[in-house]
Structures are given as C-alpha cells and as structure tokens.
C-alpha cells in the first residue's frame, strides 16, 4: 500500500473520530458549565479530558498539526479544571467552545490541503492559555475570524448580524451534516444479523440444489420407463395387426407376456414417481417459504442499516441553544429525550434543518427574557424540550417551549398586512387556521426582526421539507404558557405497508397504519347529521364520505342506488377520523413509495405513488389531507376527459312505437351493440346528459320533443355537438330529409326502405 493510499485510509477513519471526540468535548464542557455534583463532575471531567487527549494523539498520528495543538491546549485547561485551579464558568466555557469550532475548521482546511491562518491559531491558543492564568481574552476575539476567508457565513454572523436564517446554522451544524452524509456507523449487531441472513441464503441454496437433484432423478426414471416402453411397443403393434381385417388370429400367451410384464413395471414405476413427486412438491413448498421469509428478513435488516440514532442529529443542539441563549441574554435549558431512537438516515438528513430551525425559534423567539419571565411568575430559566418518540411506522418529534406562545391575532394581522389573506377571510379564520398561517412565507409575529428568526422565511421551508417526506407538522400553543410543534415523519422512506383499493377506475393506496377498520356500508343506513352522513364507530360518530367525490372524481357507486353495501375504509390521522366508501378492496401489500416527479411538488390528497406487481401505478394518498378535504369538493379541472369518453358500442334508441323499438333493438343487439331506449326526445335528452352514448338512432315524429328538435339540441350543446345522430323515419319526403340534415343529423334513413343492412352499415360508418 503506498503512502497516499495509507493516508487516505487513515483520514477515512480519522474524520469520524474527530466528530465523535468533538461531540464528547462539547457535551462535556456544557455539562461542566451547568454544574454537576462532585462525583458526576469528576466523571465528566475525566471523559472530556480523555477525549481531548485521544484527539491530540490521533491528530499527531495522521499529521494534522493544528488539531494537535488545539487539543493539547484544551488538555491543559481541562487538567487545570481537574485540579480545581480553574472553574468552568460560562466565561471560561465561552473561550473553550470556539476551540472546538476551530478544530473542525482545521479538519476541513486539512482536507483542502491547507492549514488554519497562523494568527488565528495563535490567538486561540493564547486565549486558551489565558483561561488558566486568568488573563483577559485577547482583544478582538471575533476580529481574526472576520479576517479569515469566510466559507462559513455563519461564522461571520457572530460578528455582525446577517440575513437569511437558512445560513444561520452555527459552525457546529454545517460540518456535522457532511459527517452525516459521508459515512455511516453501523452497529456490529446489525452486521451480525446480516451475516445470519447470508447463512440462511446458503441453506436456501442447498435446498434448491437438493430439489434439482431430485428432479433429475425423476427425469432419469422417466427415461428408463421410456426405454422399457420402447422395447415392448413393437409387441403392441404386432398384436394389433393380429386383429386386422375382421379376423382375429390366435395368439400365444408368450406374445403377450412382455406386455404384461411391462404393465407391472409401469405400475411400480408410476407409484415410485408419484412418491418422488410428492416429496418434491413438499421440498419446493418449504423452500419457497424459507426464501420468502429470508427475503423479508433481509429487507428489514438492510433497511435497518440505514438507520442511525437520532442523537447524531440532536447532539449538537445543547451547544447551539447555549450559544444562542448567551447571545440573546436569555437563560435557556434544553432537554433532549429519545436520542437513542433510530431513524432512516435520509429522513434524518431531511429533518435536520427544519428541526434546527424550530429549535432556534423556540430558544430565540419563544422563550422570553429572564426579566419578563420573572414578571409573569415563571422561572428565570426557560425550558425547551425536544422529544422523539417512535410509533408504528412513524417518528414523532416534539419541539416544545414554555415561553410566550404564539399570538394568533398577531399572526392574523401580519398575514393581513402582507396581503396573504383578504380582510374578509382573515376574520373568518378559525384558531387552528390562523395558527397555520405561520407556515406561510413572510408571516411572523416578531415585532423586531432578528437576524436569526422572526424574519418569517423559515417555517414555510420547514413545512416544505416535511411535506417532502410525506410527513406533517402541527402547532399547538397557549399564549403566555408555551408552544409545541409536532413533526410526524415516516420511520423509513424505503417501503410502506399499504391497503389497496379501487376508486373511479384507479388504484389507490393508504398506509395500513392509518387504517382503523374495513367494513361494508350501505349509505342509506348511515345516519345523517346536518346533511352529512356519519357512522357510529368505536365510541363516536365518524363522517362517511365517498372517496371518489373527495378526490373530485366521478362516483360510479352512487348511481347504483339499489341499496347495496359498499366497501368502506375507516381512516385515522392524528385525532381525526373519517370513513371513505370505495369501489372495491384489493388487499394489502408492501410497496415502495415513490414521490411524484417534476412539476408536481405538492399535490393535495396525494402523497406519492407506487408500482404494483404488473407494472401498474397506484396512487398513494395523503391521509392527513383527506381528513381535512371537503367532502364533495369538485377540484376544478380535475375531471379528466376519460370519464366523458363515450362507449362506442352504446346506442341510444329513440322511438315512440314500442314495436319499432323492439324490432330495432333486436337488430342492434344482435349486431353486438348495447341498446338503451327512450320513448321520446325529452327522455332521450335526459339519458344523453346522464351517460353519453356512442350514437343516437332516433325516430322523427315523436311527442314532446321530436327527432329533429333533439338533433338540434344535441348540436347546440358544446359537449355533445360531435355526437353522431341517425334519423330513422317513415317521413320520406325530400323536405323532411332536408330538414333533418339541416338540423345536423349525420344520416337520414327512411323506414320504407328500411332494412337492417343499411342501418348497420350507417352505424359502422359513423362509429368508425
């Protein structure tokens, strides 16, 4: 292995190591600052010291001298703390934390083949040394930073407020995300599980080999049987010939004996082969079962590999909150729960920014100044909690604070001021909807816009990111008491277990985690409350809707008003429940959920799609949206033209004479058409509007509305003007014919010359 290769490999292990040590150092320093009981303090101190020490050694080993120097300086400081000559006061910690940042920068610089600017390094080292001997920090602690070529806009932010909250990540945040994206730590337990799976795979292979061997043996038996047969088949031929010509010739037993022997052999062979077949079938079945199970297990185990503990994301938060609080002159404690929960890495990466943003909001925006808090009887120290909980196939993350809460009136006013809502609708907005306004770009309730938050740009981005994951975000707030943001995201993005159903000719899917019950409902039997149908399910009324109508699709089921029961799915999301009637249920399946591509960034009611067994596409529904969707809302323009496509085999036959209708119907049905009949033009017109036929065959002379009038009406209707119309009539005069054709009929057939050929030929011509 050459030097370069060696260096590369060393770097590959060193980088994650740096991150780990820095995390330990950060956690340790903050914990020390908090102040802990003596015993705990010693332990933390020891751990922190070890981290600095290891980091120093490792850095020396790979030749990153800057990190080595800083780590060394830190070691000295921590040593002083150990011997209690130095206390970890906030001011001291203020000077130590930048050392961590700078080590990160040094790492980044080293990867770029550079080193830290010498004066910057010197300044830091002096500052660190200064903590021990109690000298004041070097004058412009921030100035060197601004001299530095700033790839880190966040760095400069400390010195002067910068816009764009997106770039407001502390230096602690940005390199960490690279670490998250680069490599992944996998526990040996997971790898062991995979090894076990490959062992299973080996067993499956052996079973398959056995199967093949048995099949081959069976094949050989058949070959042997075949040989035996060939040796006696000649016999059969000669025996047959003995019976030819109506005369039977006598044969001796000796002639037949081979055949008899063969039959005996046959019986024995078949019996053995039957036995062999049974065992083969059993073997194949058990093999298949084994493979199926293995496939599932393997899939799960590989999926688990992608999971990382949430702590890899949240571990940077204590530092961030601390720095933020100190900057703003507030006192904020951070509590983290559930860091050990594992989340799909991609999900984690996607929620990293939103979560960070929410946290900053809470610490900066939510928690009031210590003075204000005391005045309202709260403890000086505000509390921000990040709690991660796993439930079913989802992860729920709560970011809560005990701060001032969100003033929905202020939100309303702001939205109004920004022209995001009209004055009328602003007044009509309920509490919930008013709060939802904060997720719109530009809305904020901060009276003074700070550089980090309050600018109102962030929450809409948060919402977008969460949407991307097919998750949801909710906010609950009590003015004066606090706010809770709740994010719900899927545990894994890879696959989902869904229930498939058919609706308006499409296949839709909902995650089984949202399905409460499956039932059959006769809509007539449902109760009506305020004109809205409802079922009584599990302790409360549940609104009953047609899924087709909710999606803005034509509901074929409503036409069959014969009181039959329709398959219905009761869905639940958060605390809302609704039951949806569908056309049919197609079972459950594990599917890979795919996002809709460009330009469909966000479609109401649709979360994504999936590919089913035969290559068909299923529509994965967004259950949260469905809970809020208007029941019969016809989303404008969503009715696809397909629904209006005429069934070409469908003929509307109009004649006031029942005899004629029967006669013509027979002819047409025998020719393979589907016939719907009406007795006059008016009836025909309503039938046409209900379901468009492929063609209209109509008499002329009829009560109420005659054939010509009907034709005119059809031609005058924009949707129907291309509907072919054939006039079939006994009115044979030229004027009548002209009248009919002028009205727009496509053909005029006189009954006098009526024969079925002409009618059928005309129909064929017009229907194409």
């Amino acid at each position, binding site marked *: 292995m050459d030097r370069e290769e060696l260096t590369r490999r060393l770097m590959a292990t060193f980088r994650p190591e740096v991150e780990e040590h820095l995390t330990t150092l950060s956690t340790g320093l903050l914990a020390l600052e908090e102040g802990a009981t003596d015993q705990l303090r010693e332990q933390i101190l020891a751990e922190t010291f070890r981290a600095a020490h290891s980091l120093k050694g490792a850095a020396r080993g790979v030749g990153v001298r800057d990190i080595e120097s800083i780590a060394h300086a830190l070691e000295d400081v921590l040593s002083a703390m150990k011997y209690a000559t130095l206390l970890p006061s906030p001011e001291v910690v203020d000077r130590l934390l930048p050392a961590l940042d700078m080590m990160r920068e040094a790492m980044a610089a080293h990867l770029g083949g550079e080193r830290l600017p010498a004066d910057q390094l010197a300044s830091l080292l002096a500052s660190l040394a200064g903590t021990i001997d109690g000298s004041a920090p070097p004058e412009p602690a921030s100035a060197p930073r601004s001299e530095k070529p700033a790839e880190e806009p966040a760095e400069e932010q400390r010195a002067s407020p910068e816009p764009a909250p997106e770039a407001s990540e502390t230096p602690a945040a940005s390199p960490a995300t690279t670490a998250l994206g680069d490599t992944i730590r996998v526990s040996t337990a997971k790898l062991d599980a995979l090894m076990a799976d490959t062992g299973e795979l080996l067993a499956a292979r052996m079973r398959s080999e056995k199967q093949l061997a048995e099949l081959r043996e069976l094949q050989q038996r058949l070959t042997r049987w075949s040989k035996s047969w060939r040796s006696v088949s000649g016999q059969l031929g000669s025996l047959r010939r003995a019976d030819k010509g109506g005369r039977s010739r006598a044969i001796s037993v000796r002639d037949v004996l081979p055949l008899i022997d063969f039959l005996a052999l046959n019986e024995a062979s078949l019996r053995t082969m039957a036995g062999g077949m049974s065992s083969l079938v059993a073997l194949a079945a058990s093999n298949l079962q084994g493979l199926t199970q293995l496939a599932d297990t393997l899939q799960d185990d590989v999926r688990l590999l992608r999971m990382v503990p949430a702590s890899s994301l949240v571990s940077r938060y204590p530092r961030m909150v601390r720095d933020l609080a100190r900057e703003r002159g507030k006192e904020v404690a951070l509590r983290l729960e559930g860091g050990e929960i594992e989340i799909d890495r991609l999900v984690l990466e996607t929620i990293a920014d939103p979560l960070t943003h929410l946290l900053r909001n809470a610490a900066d925006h939510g928690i009031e100044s210590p003075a204000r808090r005391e005045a309202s009887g709260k403890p000086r120290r505000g509390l921000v909690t990040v709690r991660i909980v796993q439930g079913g196939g989802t992860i729920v993350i709560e970011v809560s604070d005990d701060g001032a809460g969100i003033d929905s009136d202020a939100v309303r006013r702001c939205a109004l001021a920004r022209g995001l809502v009209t004055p009328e609708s602003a007044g009509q907005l309920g509490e919930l909807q008013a709060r939802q306004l904060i997720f719109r770009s530009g809305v904020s309730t901060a009276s003074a816009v700070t550089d980090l938050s309050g600018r109102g740009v962030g929450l809409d981005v948060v919402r977008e990111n969460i949407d991307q994951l097919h998750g949801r975000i909710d906010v609950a707030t009590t003015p004066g008491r606090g706010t809770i943001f709740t994010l719900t995201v899927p545990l894994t993005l890879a696959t989902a277990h869904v229930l498939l159903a058919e609706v308006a000719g499409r296949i839709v899917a909902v995650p089984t985690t949202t399905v409460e019950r499956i039932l059959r409902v006769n809509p007539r039997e449902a109760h009506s409350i305020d004109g809205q149908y409802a079922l009584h399910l599990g302790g409360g009324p549940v609104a009953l809707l047609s899924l087709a109508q909710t999606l803005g699709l034509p509901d074929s089921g409503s036409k069959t008003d014969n009181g039959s029961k329709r398959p219905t799915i009761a869905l639940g999301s958060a605390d809302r429940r609704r039951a949806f009637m569908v056309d049919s249920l197609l079972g459950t399946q594990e599917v890979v959920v795919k996002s809709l591509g460009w330009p469909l960034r966000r479609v109401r009611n649709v979360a994504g799609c999936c590919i089913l067994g035969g290559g068909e596409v299923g*529509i994965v529904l967004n259950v949260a949206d469905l809970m809020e969707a208007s029941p019969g809302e016809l989303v404008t323009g969503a009715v696809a033209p397909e629904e209006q496509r005429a069934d070409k085999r469908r003929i509307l036959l109009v004649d006031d004479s029942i005899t004629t209708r029967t006669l013509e119907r027979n002819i047409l049905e025998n020719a393979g058409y589907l016939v719907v009949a009406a007795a006059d033009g008016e009836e025909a017109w309503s039938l046409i509007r209900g379901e468009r036929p492929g063609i209209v065959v109509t008499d002329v002379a009829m009560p109420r509305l005659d054939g010509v009038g009907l034709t005119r009406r059809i031609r005058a209707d924009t949707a129907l003007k291309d509907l072919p119309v054939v006039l079939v009539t006994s009115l044979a005069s030229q004027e009548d014919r002209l009248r009919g054709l002028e009205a727009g009929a496509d053909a005029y057939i006189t009954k006098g010359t009526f024969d079925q050929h002409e009618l059928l030929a005309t129909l064929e011509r017009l229907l194409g």
Partner: protein
Amino acid sequence: MAEITQGLTNEERILAERSRALARPPHVEADGEHTHSLVAFAVGGERYGIEIGFVQEIQPLPRKAFCRLPCVPLFVAGIVNIRGRIHTVIDVGVYFGLAPRPLAEAAHVLLIRTSGNGGAPVCEVGILADERPETLRIERDDLRPPPETVAEKVRGLIHGVSEEMMAFLDLEKLLMDPGMIVRDGE
C-alpha cells in the same frame, strides 16, 4: 446507373432506387447555429416541436403503466411507470389552452430530460403526443414569431413558429413556468 435501370420494370426500378437511397450514408448536417433538429409531435390537432437534445426516449404510452391523478390541474395527463421510474405526463396542448380530450389510441410519450442550465431544474418529465412523433430539421430563419392571436403567456414559451404552424417550444422556460409547477394545499 441509368443504363442498368433501363431494362427493369417500374416496380423493380422503384425498389432499386429505394435500395440505393438506403445504401447512401445518412447525410448528417451538423446542427449549426442556424439549424435545429427537432422532435415534432401533435397534440389536440396542434403541432409542437422540441429540441432533440432534450428527448431521451419516445415510446407508445403504456396504458397499463399509466395512471391519471386526481386533484391535479388539467394539463397533467397523469403519471407513467417506465422501467421502474415514475414520470409525470404533461399535455402541452392543454397547458396552452386546448380543451382536454381522451387519450388517443396511438398516444405516445416523449421522455424529456433538462440539464439544469438556465435555472431549469434537472428533471425528467413525460410529454404526451397524440400519435407517433417525427424528427425534422428547421432553419432558424424559417421561424416566425407567433401570430398576434396567441396569448401572451404562450409567446414567452415559444422560440417561434414554423411555416407549417409548428410551435418550437422553449422547453426549459416551459418547465419552469410558474403555472407549470403544482404546489397545492398550502
């Protein structure tokens, strides 16, 4: 050549000519600044063209793997699964104001990929055609500005119109048009 074809029948002559034409190496003119190679397709009776560089693939729309979406604007014909990847299928005609129509029997889909230049995202999208598209070349000089009757919105998205009334689409502009992006429910 003429001497040889003398003695042949009409049919034979035609066939001979055809085989000669096929035997000729294709005359590939480099697309200069002034020539564009396009894929031309028809939608709702109107013809459009797209720079050939954007077109990854053309195939008949696989009905089984195609699905219409609810709750989307009319110009989104649906989504299609091609070799495991999902593409949105856009009806350009509807986007430009035509009434939606049922899927044509011979409907085809053009798979488009944009490169991410000029602000357009790197995206893959399907474009609906009512029948099999064809390729053709046009000279920049042959392009005329769209007629007055064409809506303002449409003008900005077209490079120009050819003599045969084929509208040469500025694909990247089209895909980035605000009306094209669906962000519903916010």
